[in-house]
């Protein structure tokens, strides 16, 4: 979606908001309460989706923020605060509480995170029921009887609109792209320099939910633990977001509308078991349409719907042919001579010594080949350098500075770029977006528009120009390896670690690749360590070769010398080859 489409979406939402704002003046009170409910659930569902859909952390306690907000509002209001002040307090206090709780929460990942958030719901129910002096316990708080429907309604419309706008901002911003990279592969994202505190998004999400709680509480004029923290309702906004289509701009709206109307219809026609039917719909969606309604092929056949269902991908506003060459600055002269040093690095997994006392020095501008049989520790060494693993002992230094204790993103900023043996692309993004994320991960990132354009350079450099705006999921394994390289280069590394890129390439492609390697060093001053099995490729370009066997360095020198080394021969070819030729 370009900036224009973004404006259009906001425009549509604005018109809708204005129209809805007039509803109370001509509709029945039943309709008004229905619309209020729609607005409320939309706000809750959408704000949930920022954390659950965009970031990928399934937060089941979201409804609690709504309840806390309602309570803070009610307490403040009944103590004489002006309603706007009470709302602000609701938002603020909830944000602080959620921020604090997030500290231990985000130590968990995936399903463990979901487990833990689930536990928070009944906690607040209990707190609300038992902190009687504050909350009046299970009797609840009764707000002064005033005619506030009108204002509350308008506030809710405003909040819903704000939520929508925030969504477009998050989704269409560089921040949104970076957030989605975390969802796709958090570790790979960190390795290209991305650092996002999920807490930030969680707090914004909670703040919105809390404000909605305050407004709704005011509207209801009565709050109690059951209404505010009711477990039977707590998971519904989440189901709505998922039902419509998580991580889609119009997904939560669709989900909310479908489920609210469904609920009303069921209430009207099924006096008993209406909850069960409601649950059945949710279950069936989970079973058959986990991507949500907007992603199902059936639903997409409807023309209008397919418009709503477009996944958002960033494109560049600049069209036309791509310029040659990369925008990488060679390091200034006078930089340290030794680019990378490993001192006695060891890595153990249980009883297995994957690396034993590995020491090596790589000078700036060298191209070093790293070879060894399968299981000799090459990828483990790369993982120790890029901090995917913690070393068991020893040190790794870049430009003389130890990096052994740094975070993965700090290592990327220190100048280490790498590709993975099994490509770790951001699956749900396009090729361009993958590389753009790397550009945004730099310590001094370019502007978003510039990054989107720059990405094209790197993509063309590795020969994927035709696939610039294709989804990564359509790429073959070979092309993903090329994408790995483009993305690693985009981080503007000083030292590039390449893990087995050449297997599966034709001889011509190998030659091209080797030419690139040479150019990366000659023209852009990169230092390169290259893990490879195909010696003919290595022979063309490496200055030096390091041989690993069983986690130890057994040879370190030029390729011809190393290949005639007895130990190396034994490792690769077996003892016989080291003996004399047959007569």
């Amino acid at each position: 979606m370009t900036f224009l489409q973004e404006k259009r979406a906001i425009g549509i939402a604005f018109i809708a908001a204005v129209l809805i704002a007039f509803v109370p003046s001509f509709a029945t009170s039943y309709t008004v309460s229905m619309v209020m409910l729609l607005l409320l659930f939309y706000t809750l569902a959408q704000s949930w989706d920022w954390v659950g859909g965009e970031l990928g952390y399934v937060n089941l306690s979201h409804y609690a923020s709504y309840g806390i907000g309602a309570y803070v509002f009610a307490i403040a209001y009944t103590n004489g605060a002006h309603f706007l002040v009470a709302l602000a307090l609701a938002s603020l206090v909830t944000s602080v509480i959620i921020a604090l709780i997030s500290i231990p929460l985000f130590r968990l990942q995936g399903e463990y995170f979901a487990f833990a958030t689930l536990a928070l719901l009944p906690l607040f129910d209990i707190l609300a029921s038992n902190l009687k002096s504050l909350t009046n316990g299970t009797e609840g708080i009764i707000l002064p009887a005033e005619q506030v429907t009108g204002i509350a309604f308008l506030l809710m419309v405003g909040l819903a609109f704000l939520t929508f706008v925030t969504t477009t901002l998050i989704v269409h911003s560089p921040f949104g792209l970076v957030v989605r990279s975390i969802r796709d592969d958090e570790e790979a994202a960190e390795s290209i320099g991305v650092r996002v505190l999920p807490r930030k998004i969680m707090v914004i999400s909670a703040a919105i939910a809390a404000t909605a709680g305050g407004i709704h509480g005011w509207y209801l004029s009565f709050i109690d633990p059951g209404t505010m923290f009711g477990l039977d309702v707590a998971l519904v906004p989440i189901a709505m977001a998922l039902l419509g289509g998580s991580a889609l701009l119009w997904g939560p709206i669709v989900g909310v509308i479908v489920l609210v109307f469904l609920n009303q219809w069921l209430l009207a026609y099924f006096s008993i078991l209406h909850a069960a039917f409601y649950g059945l719909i949710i279950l069936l969606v989970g079973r058959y349409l986990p991507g949500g309604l907007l992603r199902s092929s059936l639903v997409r056949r409807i023309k209008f719907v397919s418009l709503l269902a477009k996944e958002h991908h960033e494109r560049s506003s600049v069209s036309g042919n791509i310029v040659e060459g990369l925008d990488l600055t060679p390091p200034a002269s006078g930089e340290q001579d030794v680019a990378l040093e490993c001192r006695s690095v060891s890595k153990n997994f249980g009883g297995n010594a994957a690396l034993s006392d590995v020491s090596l020095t790589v000078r700036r501008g060298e191209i070093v080949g790293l070879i060894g049989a399968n299981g000799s520790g090459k990828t483990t060494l790369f993982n120790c350098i890029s901090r995917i693993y913690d070393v068991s002992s020893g040190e790794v230094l870049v430009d003389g500075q130890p990096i052994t204790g740094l975070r993965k993103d700090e290592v990327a900023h220190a100048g280490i770029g790498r590709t993975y043996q099994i490509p770790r692309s951001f699956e749900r993004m396009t090729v361009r977006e993958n590389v753009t994320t790397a550009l945004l991960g730099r310590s001094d990132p370019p502007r978003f528009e510039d990054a989107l354009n720059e990405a094209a350079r790197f993509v063309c450099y590795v020969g994927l120009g035709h696939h610039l705006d294709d989804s990564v999921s359509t790429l073959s394994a070979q092309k993903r390896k090329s994408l790995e390289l483009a993305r690693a280069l985009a981080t503007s590394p000083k030292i590039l670690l390449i893990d087995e890129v050449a297997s599966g390439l034709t001889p011509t492609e190998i030659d091209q690749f080797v030419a690139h390697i040479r150019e990366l060093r000659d023209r852009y001053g990169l230092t390169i360590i290259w893990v490879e099995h195909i010696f003919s490729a290595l022979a063309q370009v490496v200055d030096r070769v390091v041989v690993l066997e069983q986690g130890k360095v057994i040879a370190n020198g030029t390729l011809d010398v190393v290949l005639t080394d007895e130990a190396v021969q034994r490792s690769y070819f077996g003892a016989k080859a080291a003996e004399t030729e047959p007569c």
Partner: protein
Amino acid sequence: MLTVSNLQVEIDRLQILWDVNLKLEVGERVGLLGANGAGKSTTMAALLGMARANGGSIHLFEDDITNAATTRILAAGIGLVPEGRQLFPALSVEENLRMGCFLRAHRKAYRERLDYVYDLFPILKEKSRQMAGDLSGGQQQMVAIGRAMMGQPRLLLLDEPFIGVAPIVVTTVLDVLRRIAGNGVTVLLVEQNVHRALEFVDRAYVIDNGRTVHEGQSKALLNDGAFAEKFLGLE
């Protein structure tokens, strides 16, 4: 005994094997050589029904086992020592071996087979109660081979069994494999170390980019001084 004809295998929309042809007679020791990514492991997986063939066939004696269920293939007498061993790290050595007899048909012979495996690898009997995850690479490899042998296979497939195994242990394992072959088990060995493979097998196939491109008796391949270099792409 085993006939693989024009085998084609696709994984995740990518065609990995295009045309693999192998023939093994009972009691033979055959090697499967090739560079990384050539398709050796995929061939092994297909033999065990763990990768889907979209062309060609696999026959065990007269039985067509192309795309048969793994349980059926195991019952027919094929066992695999997979790349990376795939042990159960929090189960004891003995429990790992026991899983090798999981198939209903094999359960009766459990005690007998366990004694046989302990006879092949006495050190495993010593360490029978230790967690497999705590063992050294070589010992883990023994467990993996032992586990495959528990099912009394007629055909034993080994996929790179010497990765992460100390050279001294490799010798011990090779001796055991010779014993196993001596007991009448047909062996198909995937191995990266060409000479080590050729010392053990009678003949070998070479796979390159998903196709069998070469076949020869070990002696002939060993005497071809340039074979290893050609094979590893140094030219």
